[in-house]
């Protein structure tokens, strides 16, 4: 009999039986635990706070009952889903978890304030980022469709001829209810005043010559681009707050990238060959 106890196979069987026993105990314990939902006071506090943030007032007793009821229902559904293993292979869930981790890391990366020298250096490296968008100045000659009807295109050509032979643009065309000259304005602003098609056209024209006719919601226009300011360079002092924001964002980005790299380096990564 003693001999049997020395047999490795017997050890193996006994150990196995022990494991099965412990596992079943664990399952019972888990079942009890898994079917108890504790709504802690701090959780109620947190939920109430979230509720009043969206509703604009503190919840009353009835509201709190409702909040708790909703919480319990959600918790039950989540546990049932876990029981069925629904979270396995759920792409949305994986992404959400990765996202949460990402947030956690970012929060750690709250950068300290930069010195003026650091900001200055950052600004010098990223000047283009702080320049304003392209702006153009233009004059235009308006032709009213009410006045010329079908003859409007030939009228436009005629005016272009006059311009070529040196006529003063200010004496040509029809009065326009908005301005005839616009100084250094961005495309969005032109779109707002004349419609988007007109704005797109204005921002592709060459400088210094009369072009068109270009249509707008109002009629036809002959246009001359006077100036093009592609990147209006801002001076450091006036954009310092924006530079600081951008510097912070940059610091945080770098911190996060570093942190993720560190985490990755704690793993052994095996990559299989794609073409076998």
């Amino acid at each position: 009999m003693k001999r049997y106890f020395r047999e490795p196979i017997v050890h193996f069987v006994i150990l196995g039986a022990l494991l099965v026993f412990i596992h079943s105990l664990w399952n019972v314990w888990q079942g009890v635990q898994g079917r108890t939902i504790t709504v802690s006071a701090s959780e109620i506090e947190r939920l109430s706070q979230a509720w009043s943030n969206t509703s604009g007032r503190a919840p009353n007793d009835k509201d709190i009952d409702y909040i708790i009821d909703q919480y319990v229902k959600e918790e039950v559904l989540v546990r049932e889903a876990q029981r069925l293993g629904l979270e396995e292979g759920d792409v949305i869930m994986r992404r959400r978890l990765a996202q949460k981790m990402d947030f956690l890391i970012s929060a750690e990366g709250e950068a300290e304030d930069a010195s003026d020298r650091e900001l200055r250096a950052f600004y010098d490296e990223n000047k283009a980022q702080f320049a304003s968008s392209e702006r153009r100045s233009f004059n235009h000659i308006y032709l009213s469709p009410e006045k010329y009807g079908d003859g409007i295109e030939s009228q436009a050509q005629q005016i272009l001829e006059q311009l070529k032979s040196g006529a003063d643009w200010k004496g040509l065309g029809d009065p326009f209810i908005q301005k005839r000259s616009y100084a250094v304005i961005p495309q969005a602003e032109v779109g707002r005043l004349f419609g988007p098609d007109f704005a797109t056209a204005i921002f592709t024209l060459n400088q210094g010559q009369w072009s068109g006719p270009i249509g707008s919601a109002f009629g036809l226009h002959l246009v001359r681009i006077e100036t093009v300011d592609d990147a209006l360079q801002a001076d450091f002092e006036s954009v310092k707050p924006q530079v600081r924001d951008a510097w912070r964002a940059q610091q945080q980005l770098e911190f996060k990238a570093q942190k993720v790299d560190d985490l990755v380096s704690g793993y052994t990564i095996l990559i299989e060959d794609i073409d076998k």
Partner: protein
Amino acid sequence: MKKLMMSAAIVALLAGCNQTASDDSAESGALAGSNEQPNADRNAYFGDLHIHTRNSFDAYIFNVRTTPDDAYKFAKGETISHPSGYDIKLEGPKLDFMAVTDHAAYLGHLPAMDTPGTEISKNEIAKDMFSTDPDKIIQAFSIIGGAIRNGKKIAGVFDENITADVWKQTIEAADKYNKPGEFTTFSAYEYTATRVTRGQGGGFAGGNLHRNVVFKGSAPRLPFSTLDSTNPEDLWTWMDEQRDAGNDVLSIPHNSNVSDGEMFKLETYDGAPLTKAYADKRLRNEPIVEITQVKGTSETHPTLSPNDEWADFGIYEYLLSSQIKSKVNGSYVREALANGLAIEEETGSNPYKFGLIGSTDSHVAGGSFDEKNFWSKVGIVDGTAERRGSVPPDGKKSWEGVILDANADNWFSRWGASGFAAVWAEENTRESIFDAMRRKEVFATTGTRIKVRFFAGFDYDNALLDDPEMVSKAYKGGVPMGGDLIGESKAPNFLVWAMRDPLSAPLQRLQIVKVWVEGGKTNEKVFDVACSDNGTPDANYRCPDNGASVNLKDCSISSDSGAPELKTYWRDPEHKSDQRASYYVRVLENPVCRWSTWDAIRAGVQPNPKLQATIQERAWSSPIWYTPSNG
């Protein structure tokens, strides 16, 4: 000519405006932080001077939680949330200027009542207000409403410090978003006086005497509200004092249509005869009037203007919170303009010599200008199509046998997607826009961005219409909208010019509305002065039908009629040099679907047969006044 020059010079002096206008003069004086150059010929700017947020007692009960900050963000094109649970955003371009105008009486008191731990939240009225019992809520709400009307400071509820704090926040929000050259804001509030004219025994019905009080720049620690006095004449006294103290300010009356004849009546608040002193004081403080907004348009009424085929627009007659109709006389702008001339003939001064703007009066921090996408005014109360009576209730598909809730039937379904305040100003700054309001060079629209110009002089001619420097010459030789012409032996002539909104329908016609006094009697007449599609006005001054149509299946509009701009030179064929007269322009677009039709199409039901299916969006210029030289 000499007289005109003199009067023009006086107008220029009074208005402090620059009369040396030309394209080239706009070279210097760029604004800090902006590349916008001041334009001596002036630009049209569109804004809204009537917006409520959570700080208004009624808005908070309509479940509005958005703040003055949100209101300014909305005006700049950002998305904010509506209390009924959807997002709202401007359909067109951002606004050029805006003012938050919360009710000054009990300003910010409801949010404070609803904040646990505050002293005011422990009050019984506060507890009822935020209970779950609808009867208690309504009762508490009417106590506050009544106190605002009667000017009562309820002990344990009214707290001057709350008002001062929230007013300070209002001013700070305005200052924060004010960007000269880009976006102008004003510190402002609503003075909410209502005169109980009827229903004293049980219930209440009264005349709306509401005004928006707008500061040019600096503002005092506390607003003057109905808790100080319910008589608007006392408000003007306070405003005069404010001006002396360096806080320039003006007030803008609104919803005269539901004033029960009180807004433009022919006697003072206390029933005394109108005097020159009264007229001067009123005019000094109230140079402009809000002619259109969500709760209806106050231009005129079909019974006052039986010969105006377009007088039925935006008619809304129910006194606030009541099912009683407002008295017509004394409630409309056109009648007041005419009466003002008669009063001037008698007393030497015209109390109703005002310019015209529109605004929304939205209570959800964002104006609902667009017919296609209307969210009305009072938050959760009219935030859905069913609640405002444009779609039958309970998911019904037809209007057969449907009896609407009285509030939806009489109030909400009659309201409109309106309107804009527009100004002609040199640049987009507080200074320039406020000055435009003071000299009345302003116009109103029903939510469309029609631009309209209007000039009068004695020596304009037809050729000026084609002159590229028309505007600067028009300023030099006459007066713009809001101005005065002093009579000569010649008839005045007018330049009228309007351009469409690229996002709305093309223009159908330009009209001049004339009011005048003859033998002490007031008169009015509408002249069509320019017609689209090559039409000419007939002997009765009416354009031919331009055939514009709307497809009620999908709200598309005919593409082959209407004009992008209309422009004309006009002489008054009935002018008499010894008659006082006032002229304003009305611009009409081709018809489009009314908001209620859009609501119905989206829900897949027939439009409510009791409502107009289409409307004609429009703009009104401020008037120009002609006074005989011996007047």
